[in-house]
């Protein structure tokens, strides 16, 4: 069964501090992993995907198949990073459906 676990419901850091949002998954195959973000009063939008291997807004995420993890990291958090973050998984081989984690609410304090 496909499952995405985000162990932290809430995460609070100070501006300029490093931040790591944890995501673990279970999938019997090679999935594609995503991070979606929802800023206050805005729609859910893609932040990054593991296949792209890019940094968006200073965030990076590396897929660790051994640990089945896809943690989201940023070395210096900004106040505008405060948002709800969802990790999501899509099965390879044609399926475009997403399975979401429950989300982590990140608050960056001044």
């Amino acid at each position, binding site marked *: 069964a496909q499952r995405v676990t985000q162990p932290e419901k809430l995460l609070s850091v100070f501006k300029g501090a490093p931040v790591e949002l944890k995501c673990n998954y279970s999938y019997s195959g090679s999935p*594609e992993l995503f991070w979606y973000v929802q800023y206050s009063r805005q729609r*859910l939008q893609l932040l990054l*995907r593991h296949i792209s291997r890019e940094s968006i807004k200073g965030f990076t995420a590396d897929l660790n198949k051994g640990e089945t993890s896809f943690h989201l990291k940023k070395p210096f958090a900004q106040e505008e990073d405060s948002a709800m973050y969802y990790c999501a998984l899509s099965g390879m081989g044609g399926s475009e*459906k997403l399975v*979401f984690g429950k989300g982590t609410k990140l608050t960056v304090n001044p």
Partner: protein
Amino acid sequence: DAMVIQNPRYQVTQFGKPVTLSCSQTLNHNVMYWYQQKSSQAPKLLFHYYDKDFNNEADTPDNFQSRRPNTSFCFLDIRSPGLGDTAMYLCATSSGRTQYFGPGTRLLVL
């Protein structure tokens, strides 16, 4: 430029009174999705269309139906809403594996 539009943004209905939620897209994507998101929970896929092909999730209640009359529009019909159907309903489209979300319709069943 709104790419995925949902109407209405807020809907209040009475227990048992049918309700229809609307989604339209300007992206010309062939896949459209409906998700249900209850408070503090992950978005949960109800069903999706690949062009005109309807794909229902196994655990989606029969009370939930959908129509896609053309590429641009997709409707979610709740035939007899129960109190437990109070939630945010998200529409999304995709071409490839990135999903583009609408702002959601917040449904309250009284």
